[in-house]
């Protein structure tokens, strides 16, 4: 960034402003740039490389509202060396940030369509920016349907937002968990089981999916059964991203690089390699 030249390999310093606990192993980190002139613009679906100095980098989807420029939000599950190190940081500590990288959800190209968003577990994080944007331009779309699955009620992210979207009455929110006891009176079962009983026009529907690949695989299967066209199904892929700009090859996915050509892919363009164990 020195001399005003953008160098995608050079991290920018961001300060942690707030940490919001979402579940027992997942929190949302709000960060803002040390240099207030630093841009925080991003498109829904993009990711940043977060750098804990002296430990390493990890790719994390941006989970906040694209219209709110001051701070960036990242929802992070404690899962490896770098994310464990991020959890040791406190409000006021510094993180290195490179990005935003990758492409975005096809919100502009979906105007006029019904929108089905299917998320599994922490897969709701990269989709939340899309939901904020869809809701802010509600009149441009047909039905907006969120199908969200998690292991248990305790594992659900963004409970306040889920309640808020549900209360709008112009967003259909269906949440399901694998198992529950006690006070849970929502649905129980996998997220794919919600699809056959959800009403949308398959001929003018855009589906956006994010979750573990096995969840996306079965979700796509159900959407295809409902006659949603493969070219209208989009999924966010995850691979071992390192450089973020398609140079290092760590995130190669068949003939593409997830960091540069993705993470959002149109299903018909990857259907021959999606789910292949050799890839």
């Amino acid at each position, binding site marked *: 960034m020195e001399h005003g030249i953008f160098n995608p390999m050079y991290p920018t310093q961001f300060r942690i402003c707030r940490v919001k606990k979402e579940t027992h192993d997942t929190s949302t980190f709000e960060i803002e740039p040390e240099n207030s002139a630093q841009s925080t613009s991003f498109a829904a679906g993009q990711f940043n490389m977060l750098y804990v100095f002296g430990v390493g980098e990890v790719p994390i989807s941006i989970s906040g509202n694209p219209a709110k420029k001051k701070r960036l939000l990242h929802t992070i599950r404690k899962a490896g060396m770098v994310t464990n190190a991020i959890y040791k940081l406190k409000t006021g500590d510094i993180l290195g940030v490179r990005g935003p990288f990758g492409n975005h959800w096809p919100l502009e190209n979906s105007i006029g369509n019904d929108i089905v968003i299917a998320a599994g577990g*922490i897969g709701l994080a990269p989709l939340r920016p899309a939901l904020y944007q869809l809701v802010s331009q509600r009149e441009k779309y047909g039905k907006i349907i969120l199908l969200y699955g998690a292991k248990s009620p305790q594992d659900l992210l963004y409970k306040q937002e889920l309640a808020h979207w549900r209360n709008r009455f112009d967003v259909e929110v269906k949440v399901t968990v694998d198992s529950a006891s006690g006070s849970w009176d929502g649905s*129980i079962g996998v997220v794919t089981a919600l699809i056959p*009983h959800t009403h949308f026009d398959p001929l003018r529907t855009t589906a956006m999916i994010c979750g573990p690949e*096995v969840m996306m695989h*079965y979700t796509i299967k159900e959407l295809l059964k409902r006659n949603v066209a493969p070219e209208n199904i989009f999924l966010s892929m995850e691979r071992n991203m390192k450089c973020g700009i398609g140079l290092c090859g760590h995130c190669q996915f068949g003939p593409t690089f997830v960091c540069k050509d993705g993470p959002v892919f149109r299903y018909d363009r990857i259907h021959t390699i999606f789910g292949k164990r050799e890839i």
Partner: protein
Amino acid sequence: MQTLEPYLTEHPFLKDLEPRLLKILVGCASNVRFNAGQFVFREGEEANNFYIIRHGKISIEIFAAERGSLSIQTIGEGEILGWSWLIPPYRWRFDARAVELTRAIALDGKCLREKCEMDHDLGYELLKRFAHIITQRLETTRLQLIDIYGIRK
């Protein structure tokens, strides 16, 4: 008086069923309702019905002495509840309880079992359709078992 025939004809579970066979089913169908918290059936009881849910939600539960009632699946609008009526020993394998006010069509399985014995076309059609339901339930149970949300970081 309006019968349940128009609703059953349109229902995906009975799609393309021969009119003659549909008439048999209509003859065995009745409207039922369950208030929130009311049991539809309990594990071990005789299984003599199946249900097409029109509105509401039913929880399928296992009772574990140390942990109370554990809900393993919910069945909602348009879905089919109950297949134990078709498979010996014709006893419910789980509890089913209404989570909220639920309206459904009950089909008399005991009567249908006898009709299936006499009319194998009816028996084959129902078995094909229930095999599909059972397969779906098995598939979703397997997905629940592997924790399909737990891998992505």
